[in-house]
């Protein structure tokens, strides 16, 4: 393969990538400053945001300026540092709205979990690169999760369920891109899916059948959620069913692998049990999000209020929007969390379909460039870091926008680069600096 050596800034930087990042930063700043306008502490927000933009650009330059491979070499140090930070915040962090997630520093507050998201990608990429030869073993999958588990536990302790939630798709996505066995990943996702579906199913039954008649399916399901005899009966029943199916397949001389008939019930049972445990530990506001998703009409003023108002904001924006600072939903306070989680709804209301499409397009461009940079990366580590970041941006973007337009449940995940949040912005731009770094070193020999 002929190697074309380019020199100078043009060859070292990827213009579409920087355009996408810059465009999102500009669009985000405009939307955020408009959305936060009616707030009493607006001046403080403007100052903090300006500071964050400057610091973020500096962080991007920082990410770009030294070889990204240092994170691979020093993965253990990174791992320990993050572990220390996450532990420290539980002890010395300050509490906002019941979450002990922040370090209050002289000029800004810093959220270690934000840093942990990027660090997770850097550390996991190093791990997967090291396990390249044994990538198809199930142990690799388990170890990858095992590595992340202490961080996740520390983050859930804060409690910051939403950030922890983003770890799972990042891990699965990176494992997938690293070449892990699809069967293993499917098993894992099946487990995750069952776990996630359980609270949804229980909530659905609770809302629609407040007083189920004994003997019916909803009654059985609700009984199961109480972790009693019914749970055991369902588990044993499911296992016997699978055993029967196995014997049947042998009797029919089907060419099926026995492992399926062991794995499937184990996955189902494990998913169900952890789902039941999670269901019983849900906080009321989390429960309400489930309710809002499965039955939006149940309480339009309560749990589903946010999503409803967000849809009104976006829908009423029309083609070109109502103009900046002129959205009735955002400026008059009907839209909750308007400068953070629901910023996309403000864009929809004030900049219309044009604004939402531009942000959507810029996001797809950004992710596409990250994916392309992954392909051109000079080493597997760079490739994996880009994959991890692409998955992270993709997941957060789809989940946040999906929530704003009412397609996905409320997860409390902000939209990177657009939502207000100083430490998030700085760290996100730093991670983009790393991507740019990977691009700029695509031909470097070492």
């Amino acid at each position, binding site marked *: 393969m002929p190697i074309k050596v380019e020199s100078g800034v043009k060859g070292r930087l990827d213009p579409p990538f920087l355009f996408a990042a810059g465009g999102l930063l500009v669009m985000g700043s405009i939307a955020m400053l408009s959305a936060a306008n009616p707030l009493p502490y607006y001046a403080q927000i403007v100052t903090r945001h300006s500071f964050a933009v400057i610091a973020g650009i500096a962080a991007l330059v920082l990410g770009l300026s030294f070889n990204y491979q240092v994170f691979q070499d020093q993965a253990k140090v990174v791992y320990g540092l993050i572990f220390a930070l996450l532990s420290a915040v539980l002890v010395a962090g300050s509490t906002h709205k019941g979450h002990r997630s922040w370090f209050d520093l002289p000029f800004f507050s810093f959220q270690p979990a934000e840093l942990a998201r990027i660090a997770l990608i850097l550390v996991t990429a190093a791990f997967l690169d090291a396990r390249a030869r044994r990538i198809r073993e199930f142990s690799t999958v388990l170890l990858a999760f095992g590595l992340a588990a202490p961080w996740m536990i520390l983050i859930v302790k804060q409690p910051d369920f939403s950030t922890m939630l983003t770890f799972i798709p990042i891990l699965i996505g990176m494992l*997938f891109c690293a070449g892990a066995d699809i069967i293993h990943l499917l098993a894992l996702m099946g487990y995750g899916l069952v776990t996630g579906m359980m609270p949804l199913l229980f909530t659905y039954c609770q809302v629609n059948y407040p007083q189920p008649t004994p003997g019916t399916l909803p009654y059985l399901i609700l009984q199961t959620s109480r972790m009693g005899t019914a749970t055991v009966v369902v588990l044993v029943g499911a296992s016997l069913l699978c055993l029967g199916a196995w014997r049947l397949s042998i009797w029919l001389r089907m060419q099926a692998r026995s492992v399926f008939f062991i794995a499937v019930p184990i996955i189902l049972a494990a998913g169900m049990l952890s789902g039941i445990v999670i269901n019983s530990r849900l906080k009321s506001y989390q429960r309400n999000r489930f309710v809002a998703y499965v039955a939006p009409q149940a309480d339009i003023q309560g749990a589903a209020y946010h999503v409803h108002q967000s849809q009104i904001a*976006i*829908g009423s924006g029309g083609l070109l929007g109502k103009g900046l600072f002129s959205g009735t939903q955002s400026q008059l306070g009907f839209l909750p969390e308007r400068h953070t989680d629901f910023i996309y709804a403000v864009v929809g209301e004030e900049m219309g379909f044009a604004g939402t499409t531009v942000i959507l397009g810029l996001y797809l461009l950004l992710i596409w460039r990250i994916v392309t940079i992954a392909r051109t990366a000079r080493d597997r580590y760079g490739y994996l870091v880009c994959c991890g970041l692409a998955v992270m941006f993709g997941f957060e973007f789809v989940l946040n926008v999906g929530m704003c337009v009412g*397609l996905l449940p409320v997860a409390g995940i902000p939209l990177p680069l657009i939502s207000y949040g100083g430490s998030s912005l700085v760290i996100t731009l730093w991670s983009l600096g790393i991507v740019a770094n990977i691009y700029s070193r695509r031909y470097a020999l070492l």
Partner: protein
Amino acid sequence: MIQGHQPLHDRLSIMWNLVLWSGVALLIRLFQLQLYQNVEYNELALHNSTQMIYQTAPRGRIYDRNGLALATSQPAFSLIYLPPKVKEKADLKPLAAALSKQLGQDPEALLETLQEAVREQTALRLAENLPRQTYFRLKEIETIYPGIDLIEEARRYYPLGRFASHLIGYMGKIDIQSYKQLKNQGYRVDARIGKLGIEKIFEKVLRGRDGGIRMVVDAQGRLKRRLGSFKWETGSNIHLTIDAAMQSAADEGLRKSLTGRGAVVAIDPRNGAILALSSTPDFEPNQLLSSDPEVVKSAKAGLDWNNRAISGVYPPGSAFKLIVSAAGLNEGRLNTQDTIFCPGYFELGKNIFLCWNHKGHKRVDWWQGLAQSCDVFFYHLGLKVGGDLIERYETAFGLGRKTSIPGFEHWEKSGHLFGPQTRKTAGRGWWEGDSVNLAIGQGELLVTPIQLAVMMSAIANKGTLYRPNYIDRIEYADGRPAYEQKPEKLGTVALKDSTWATLQAGMALVVSSGTGISARISGLDVRGKTGTAQNSGGDDHAWFVAYGARPGEPSAVAVAVLVENGGHGASVAAPIARNIILAAYHLEDKGGRIIPSTGTLSIPIPATPMRAGPGPAVRTL
């Protein structure tokens, strides 16, 4: 690029496609929300962010026949509460506590109203008719608590206060039943509505149509800015046939009378127009609209809703002797010169009927009998004329039948006829003793004051029974006529001319030298008849029925005065009637001298219709 990554790149492509197609799905959803369903969501956003502030239209005014305002509108301040649009569990208690201090209302009741406003998502009035000093103190609260707004609106005001209150009626808060029936006519849950009398009967005419301002509100219910408005339409004005001076004379006369309970009806015999309609105890309608709940409570506590003028039934007593005389004269059974001897009592079989004058009137003819109201003379006459004939005349003069004064159908009573036919219908017999009782207006005979007023005007105009009416005309707010009242006949009493002449002459004698002398007015031709009606309820009811005229002119006023348990008609009821007749001819009695009246009612009337501020807000659209 490193070699051997191809399969991994395929996997990356799968991931990328996943993101890309999710993006496409989101794009489709955005298209659906923002372009396809845009109109629908626009409406929802508008519903969220705007609130209709209704402006109560100034109610139509009520005038007397000379253009004096009896009911008008006055600017006043009301306190309304616009609940927040977001159903945050806002703590309303501090607000209720702060308000209760300023308004002097019970904090519990205030809290309940606030909670209702939040529950129903409508604006509610917390207080109205607020005095100016409270206004400034509340302005302070307005800045602290979102949702509290002070608005200026037109309030009903009765310049004369306690005046014809049973006729004009009063305004009050709409009750829940009426609200349910009327809400599609634009009534709101905190609307004021006519509760009695003309205010109730002509509610639709007086009300007009409310205006509104569309305001932008934020999620806490704070008013932000004005979007647009539509103007209210003032209600129509009603001009009554009531004469304020006569009405005042009637109201005051009754209030100052012995028992303070009674009724007056004065009618123009030429067309049936009611000049005064009074019933006491009356009430002060302004108090019923007060912002102070204590005032309203105490005003309501002593209230007597009974409009005695049309729904009080009483035996007519000696006033009925006019009918008996008319029957006797017209049927030729009475020779005015014939005399009887009154020893002070009358024997019929084993029964003894007393004359009111126990000493007896000695020898009296009809003239003296009527003038002195000799019962014994009429006992004789009653037997001579007979129950059947008397009953026929009683019916002819409209007794026992509602006068059908418009609008008061539900309140008006028909009284009770007394005579052989009525008895027969009821399956009972008639005895001579009944005729004797009937002859002096006792027994089972019951009449309302308005019936006697109609009877009197028929005697004054020689036979025409007009439907009593109190509306002169109705005009739209801009002065265009909406309705004009024409006299309506209920019937005619066809009597011989000589009968009318004799009857009227007899009544003149009653006033000039008989029992009705205290109604005499020099220079005016007053004719009447007293009545002192015995009843089972206590002291006698005092009656005086009369009409007055300038000499040689047709009578312009017929009046019936009743003072419940007042005793003698001559001393209690006749002076009241006299004052009313004086007022009818714009005269007054100054120490026995009759002079043209100088004093008009000195009540300040606002010259121009008031400017209505934003009225109370009620519901979002």
